């Protein structure tokens, strides 16, 4: 059988890949991909710990419930980011975040 640490290691790999993407990429869509990967890494941890180490009773589903909320929030976040990407493309004909000078403070 798989142990809890196997799932946590896979989650750590996804998180590392997400950080790599956030540091190196300049395309707004790739940055969104990286953020989604990191959110999924966190969700995997939530479910894994909930299933192997339930707090209190063996029917405690708090971790799974949090993941359902997290998925819904991530969907809302993706919708807003994609709307921003479309607006940035309409204004600048590009979605390179280093080119969006008008958004500098």
């Amino acid at each position, binding site marked *: 059988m798989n*142990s809890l640490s196997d799932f946590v290691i896979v989650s750590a790999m996804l998180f590392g890949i997400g950080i790599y993407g956030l540091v190196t990429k300049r395309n707004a869509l790739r940055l969104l*991909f990286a953020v989604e*990967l990191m959110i999924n890494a966190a969700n995997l941890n939530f479910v894994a710990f909930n299933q192997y180490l339930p707090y209190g009773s063996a029917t405690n589903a708090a971790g799974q*419930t949090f993941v359902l909320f997290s*998925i819904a929030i991530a969907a809302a976040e993706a919708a807003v980011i994609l*709307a*921003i990407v479309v607006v940035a493309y309409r204004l600048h004909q590009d979605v390179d975040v280093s080119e969006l000078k008008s958004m500098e403070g």
Partner: protein
Amino acid sequence: MADLVFLGMAVLTVGSAIVALESKEIIYGAIGLAGSLLGVAMLFFLLDAPYVAVFQIAVYIGAVAVLILFTVMLVRQEKWAKEAPGKSLTRLAGALTGLAVFVALAFAVLATNLSQFTQVVNTATFVNIGDLISTGDSPILLVLALVLAASVVGALTLSRVDREDDAR
């Protein structure tokens, strides 16, 4: 030890994640992201959490991945594929940062006794999840509904086009 199905799903998840970020054509990157999300859903199945897995497939692959694919089709440009893939120094720094985070987390995990837990002991079903959502966590659900409504209104407002004859 980890069995073969888990290994396959882990390779699918991590490999598709790398494809999502490193593919030349961004549309293949979007498909790679969908593959990675599917891999995570399969890991949820392996964790004996089918409700969360199906929710993940319905929302992420059914909605978010399709939304991303349509946006990529709207804004994709030929020059992205031809562009040089960034400065090598930035890539090296990013790879080192990601690797350092992974190694630190992996060492932290291996230093604990997490590998001793080999049985899924949670027997919670969707009944327990629904119970939790509708009683204890119901304020979270209400706030979540407000956040979703606000994000939909925000996205619509952002992507609105002002027509000449409407502007007054």
